[in-house]
């Protein structure tokens, strides 16, 4: 094993040190912002540097990957032997680079965005802790270690969504995210128990080696395990039916949305499936469920994004939609394709979120300067911002072209790869053609709603307000510099996995071959002819351009009114604006029955009646009743005692004789 790979523990530990230091500072010296900046950003830059060294070393000795580094024994219970160990292979290396790289950039951005916030040290402590758990998640060498990271990022997500917890709606959004993730985690736990029951192990290497012998292909057990794992993924990665927490999670600071709710944490589900690719390849029925859910989510979330006015809500539904693409990819067996879209998405979506953060920052500053209380996130209050924020407008256009799938930009290659892989399996079963159609329609909507966002934000007349206009300005360099780095990734990131018809194609696919080789045994061969591939590229290009041009032609930013003057939506537009009423439906189906049950049965009957009444007060009442009888006997009169004594003696004599 190359020695530098052994440093991987340092990548994990550095953010944790940052968390401890910033946590201490937030208690002891909350004003020491420069120290927080130095520590918070410093540990991430250092972690990124070490990660680069680790990956470079991995590239040297890549033939003997995966490297599993065991640090200490966690628990030994019966047959279960768990150790705390990290796994470095091609898949975790890619995730390692994305997580540390994007996190470092977002930490830098946060320095500018959160500068005025009184909770600055607390913010960086949470953010460092998040990176620590995310690294545990992607580097863990067994399901339980991964689960620790999985739960840890959920905790940090909760803490950061409710970062401004004085506002009740923010705290509620945090709770919603946490509770919906619990539903998914239940699936993850069930899957772990079943895997241990069948294989007697939980470490990735052992489970995946034993899987071909331990499970029947498409058998009941493997299908159950993979579906339970996928339930975990729908919670963490915001897929139907557990997606409603992610748009609400936008209550957190915008860099948090960029890091946790776009680039890293929400992609954990895709990583889990790519990691367990052997299990999913052996369960084709589950894989179809994954692909169908992904395609349906991609389309469903895209329709909602069409009609949102909050700039972050558009991006949130866009994230849900793009995560759907990733699940479509891993569902049809294109594990490398799914991870490739994860990487490009991390670039362009982080860029979009940070760009929107920059816009919100500017609007917030303008409204602050004139002491007006308007929604700084509503696109109806923006418009024409490219004059004031040329850098932000430029980089966000790059990201928009990438996510819309314009050829040459990263998103084109990754999205096209997934759709091509779906299409290629159409000869097996027509359902894959149907999924391809869903994905393509979602791609059209993606191009449309992203162009809509750009037009309403950066083009047309400004609607911020006459007095506010003079206060609009570009964000400081500490915020724009990370945008530029991400823009480079969003623009050219696609070169790492070009389509098969181009030279030097499929680098990521070749890289992942050792990770996915076992699953290839179970996946049907799906090769597209060169003509078909060019045709798909042509269709994808046409879809992207039609979406952009249609939005450009149909939308009239000049006719838009600012948020407080705008009329309410009507008809079908209102249905989309209200997000298909999913929250209301869930409220009626699950939340209200649960509350009713809790209040009328669990509280009034079980808690107040049984526990308080029968058990607590009942035992006290019984003791008091016995005490009452006992005290009545103790009169203190000697004659009474003697009488009892005589009666007792007589009774004894009667029984003995």
């Amino acid at each position, binding site marked *: 094993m190359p020695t530098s790979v052994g440093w991987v523990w340092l990548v994990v530990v550095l953010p944790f040190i940052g968390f401890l230091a910033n946590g201490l500072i937030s208690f002891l010296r909350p004003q020491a912002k420069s120290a927080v900046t130095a520590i918070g950003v410093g540990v991430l830059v250092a972690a990124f540097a070490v990660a680069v060294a680790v990956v470079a070393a991995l590239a040297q000795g890549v033939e003997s990957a995966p490297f599993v580094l065991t640090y200490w024994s966690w628990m030994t219970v019966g047959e279960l032997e768990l150790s705390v160990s990290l796994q470095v292979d091609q898949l975790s290396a890619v995730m390692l680079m994305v997580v540390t790289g994007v996190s470092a950039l977002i930490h830098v951005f946060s320095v500018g965005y959160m500068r005025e916030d009184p909770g600055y040290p607390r913010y960086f402590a949470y953010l460092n802790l998040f990176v620590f758990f995310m690294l545990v998640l992607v580097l863990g060498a067994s399901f339980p270690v991964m689960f620790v990271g999985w739960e840890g990022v959920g905790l940090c997500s909760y803490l950061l969504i409710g970062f401004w917890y004085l506002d009740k709606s923010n705290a509620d959004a945090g709770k919603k995210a946490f509770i919906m993730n619990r539903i998914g985690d239940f699936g993850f736990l069930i899957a772990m128990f079943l895997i241990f029951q069948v294989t007697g192990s939980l470490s990735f290497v052992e489970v995946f080696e034993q899987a071909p012998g331990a499970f029947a292909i498409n058998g009941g057990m493997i299908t159950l395990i993979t579906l339970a794992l996928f339930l975990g993924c729908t919670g963490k990665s915001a897929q139907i039916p557990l997606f409603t927490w992610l748009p609400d999670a936008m209550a957190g600071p915008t860099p948090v949305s960029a890091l946790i709710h776009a680039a890293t944490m929400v992609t954990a589900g895709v990583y889990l499936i790519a990691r367990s690719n052997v299990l999913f390849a052996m369960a084709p029925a589950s894989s179809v469920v994954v692909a169908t859910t992904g395609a349906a989510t991609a389309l469903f979330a895209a329709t909602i994004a069409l009609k949102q006015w909050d700039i972050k809500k558009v991006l949130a539904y866009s994230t849900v939609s793009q995560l759907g693409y990733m699940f479509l990819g891993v569902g049809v067996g294109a594990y490398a394709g799914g991870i490739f879209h994860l990487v490009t998405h991390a670039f362009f979506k982080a860029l979009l979120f940070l760009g929107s953060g920059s816009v919100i920052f500017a609007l917030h500053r303008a409204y602050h300067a004139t002491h007006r209380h308007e929604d700084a996130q509503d696109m109806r209050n923006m418009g024409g911002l490219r004059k004031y924020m040329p850098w932000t407008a430029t980089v966000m256009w790059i990201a928009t072209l990438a996510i819309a799938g314009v050829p040459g930009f990263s998103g084109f290659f990754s999205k096209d790869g997934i759709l091509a892989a779906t299409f290629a399996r159409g000869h097996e079963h027509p359902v894959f053609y149907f999924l391809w159609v869903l994905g393509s329609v979602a791609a059209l909507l993606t191009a449309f709603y992203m162009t809509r966002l750009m037009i309403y934000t950066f083009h047309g007349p400004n609607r911020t307000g006459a007095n506010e206009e003079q206060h609009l300005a570009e964000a400081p360099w500490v915020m724009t510099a990370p945008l530029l780095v991400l823009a480079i990734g969003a623009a050219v990131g696609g070169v790492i996995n070009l389509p098969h018809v181009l030279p030097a194609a499929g680098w990521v696919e070749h890289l992942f071959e050792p990770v996915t080789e076992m699953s290839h045994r179970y996946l049907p061969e799906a090769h597209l002819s060169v003509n078909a591939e060019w045709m798909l590229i042509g269709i994808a290009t046409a879809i992207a351009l039609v979406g952009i041009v249609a939005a450009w032609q149909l939308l009239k930013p000049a006719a838009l009114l600012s948020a407080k003057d705008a009329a309410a939506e009507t008809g079908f537009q209102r249905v989309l604006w209200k997000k298909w009423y999913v929250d209301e439906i869930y409220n009626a189906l699950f939340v209200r029955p649960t509350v009713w049950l809790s209040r009328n049965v669990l509280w009034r009957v079980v808690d107040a009646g049984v526990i308080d009444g029968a058990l607590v007060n009942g035992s006290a009442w019984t003791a008091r009743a016995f005490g009452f009888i006992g005290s009545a006997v*103790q*009169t*203190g*009169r*000697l*004659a009474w005692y*003697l*009488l009892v004594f*005589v009666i007792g003696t007589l009774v004894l004599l009667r029984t003995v004789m």
Partner: protein
Amino acid sequence: MQAATGQELLGSALAVSAILFSMGVAGVLLRRNAIIVFMCIELMLNAVNLSFIALAQQLGPDGQVFVLFVMAVAAAEAAVGLAIIIAIYRHKQTVNLDKVNLLSG
């Protein structure tokens, strides 16, 4: 008139003993005068003595020895008990047990 057999005498003696004992118990329970209560205790002791003597006719002389012991203890008890009653009377000007209730809470 035939002489009564040992068996019949035993039965009568035990019956008298039981009656005496019950009178003693009733006196202890019902009377309030400490001297009467004290005399009732003596009555109970002597009821027991009577049954000892009666049974000694059948079972050997152990019972008669016991009676001597009981009479000795009863004499000692009478001395101590009467002394206590006199002390109580000097202290409270009464020997009514209902008035002597310092320990009854």
